[in-house]
């Protein structure tokens, strides 16, 4: 098992060169094929992805705990150095928050009374599933994290993932014991939001930078830096009113939002189980179409194409 010498390479080169060139073309072709499959048949890619992620998550879970402890120790050491200043700041903040608490209590009571008066339909109940962040791929192309809770813990596709600060993202893929959360900042993320005191509707779109952009804002909307951005609840995916961030910049190039979530210290995520019927129906439809497609694919490939839309139509209430 020594390094091949120059002469060995020269003798073997003509045949080997052809074989390796062929293998390269074949595998690059296969990669492009996978890209096409990923665009057209997302089910297969998603199932493979969740299967591999499920296998790896226990390892990541075990290894990321010491990493967490280590970074926790570093953070503690850092905080010791600025303990008194932090204490002072926290005291001031506490005083301010107590005032806000009084305001919130008053508004809550007033709100409840007004809702009672106008017989408003109550919002569906919210349950929470808490999960640890075990994987963060990083890189320039995606903004996602892996969590150590999945189907068996009750996590479902489309649910909102929040931290104590605000909305972090939504569940994009669910395996048995793991799930992938698509963060607000990912290029594929689109969240319906409400902006500012005028409650203008818009869509918050990520672009892999730390500051997602506000799109589709109405022409009459007046947005200023510092305006609060919260989820609108449109589409029934997220509960309305989850805090997201503040408008940080308004310019010709676009309106940017600074999310509240501290991306670097996101160790635990809460998955909001919001019992809204809209999205569940959609999931049932997809499930039915998927089962029909796989059943039909086993018999004839041509029939699968016809059966899938029919099954989706049947599933629609």
């Amino acid at each position: 098992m020594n390094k091949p010498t120059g002469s060995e390479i020269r003798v073997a080169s003509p045949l080997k060169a052809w074989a390796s060139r062929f293998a390269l073309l074949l595998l690059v072709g296969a990669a492009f094929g996978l890209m096409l499959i990923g665009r057209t048949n997302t089910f297969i890619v998603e199932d493979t992805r969740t299967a591999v992620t499920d296998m790896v998550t226990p390892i990541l879970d075990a290894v990321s705990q010491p990493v967490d402890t280590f970074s926790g120790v570093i953070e503690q050491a850092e905080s010791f150095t600025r303990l008194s200043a932090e204490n002072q700041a926290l005291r001031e903040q506490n005083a301010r928050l107590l005032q806000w608490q009084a305001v919130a209590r008053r508004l809550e009571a007033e709100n409840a009374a007004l809702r009672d008066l106008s017989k408003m339909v109550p919002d569906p109940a919210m349950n929470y599933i808490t999960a640890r962040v075990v994987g963060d791929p990083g890189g320039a192309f995606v903004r996602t994290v892996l969590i150590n809770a999945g189907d068996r813990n009750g996590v479902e596709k489309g649910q909102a993932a929040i931290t104590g600060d605000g909305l972090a993202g939504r569940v994009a893929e669910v395996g048995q014991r793991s799930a992938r959360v698509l963060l607000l900042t990912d290029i594929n993320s689109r969240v319906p939001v409400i902006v500012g005191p005028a409650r203008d509707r818009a869509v918050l779109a990520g672009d892999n930078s730390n500051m997602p952009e506000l799109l589709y804002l109405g022409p009459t909307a007046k947005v200023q830096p510092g305006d609060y951005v919260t989820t609108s609840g449109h589409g029934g995916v997220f509960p309305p009113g989850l805090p997201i961030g503040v408008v940080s910049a308004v310019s010709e190039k676009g309106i940017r939002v600074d999310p509240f979530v501290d991306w670097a210290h996101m160790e635990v995520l809460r998955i909001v189980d919001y019992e809204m019927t809209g999205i569940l129906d959609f999931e049932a439809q997809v499930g039915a179409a998927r089962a029909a497609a796989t059943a039909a694919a086993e018999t004839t490939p041509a029939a699968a194409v016809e059966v899938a839309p029919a099954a989706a139509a049947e599933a629609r209430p």
Partner: protein
Amino acid sequence: MRQEEGLWHRLDLVARSISPFFVTLLLVLVSLLPLRIADLSPIVPALALIGVFFWSVHRPDLMPIWAVFLIGFVQDLLTGAVLGPGIVGLLVAHALVVWQLRFFLAASFAVIWVAFMLVAAASLSVTWLLTCIALMAYVEPAPLFFQYLVTLAFYPCLAWAFLRGQRLFHR
């Protein structure tokens, strides 16, 4: 007694011949670990690229092209990126090295590092271009550039560790 030695010897050989593949897969996992360091997450080094390049240069017989494909496949699945561009990026790196293998056989460590700069640039550019095409969107290349620089800085550390490991194996 002699037969047992033969078995151990064979096991040892198998372990050596698959170790580059598994070490590179391990690097894919390591790059997934959440480090929780402010602003580092977008610019984590492309560790799998370093592994594929290193073994394509030093032990091309132990890093065959199908292994490169598998590593890229697992990496793209686990990072949640579009499936495909990462694979092609790694294949490009491997193909460039194999194409100029005779040059690499005679090169010193510093020269190989410089060559890695070119190969990594080509590999990451291809991945970026294909990702843009697949997403039909313009992905901001600035974080990728920083990722490239961090990857270059990480190369000597990892390569040193790999070389030490290899020497231990061959004693």
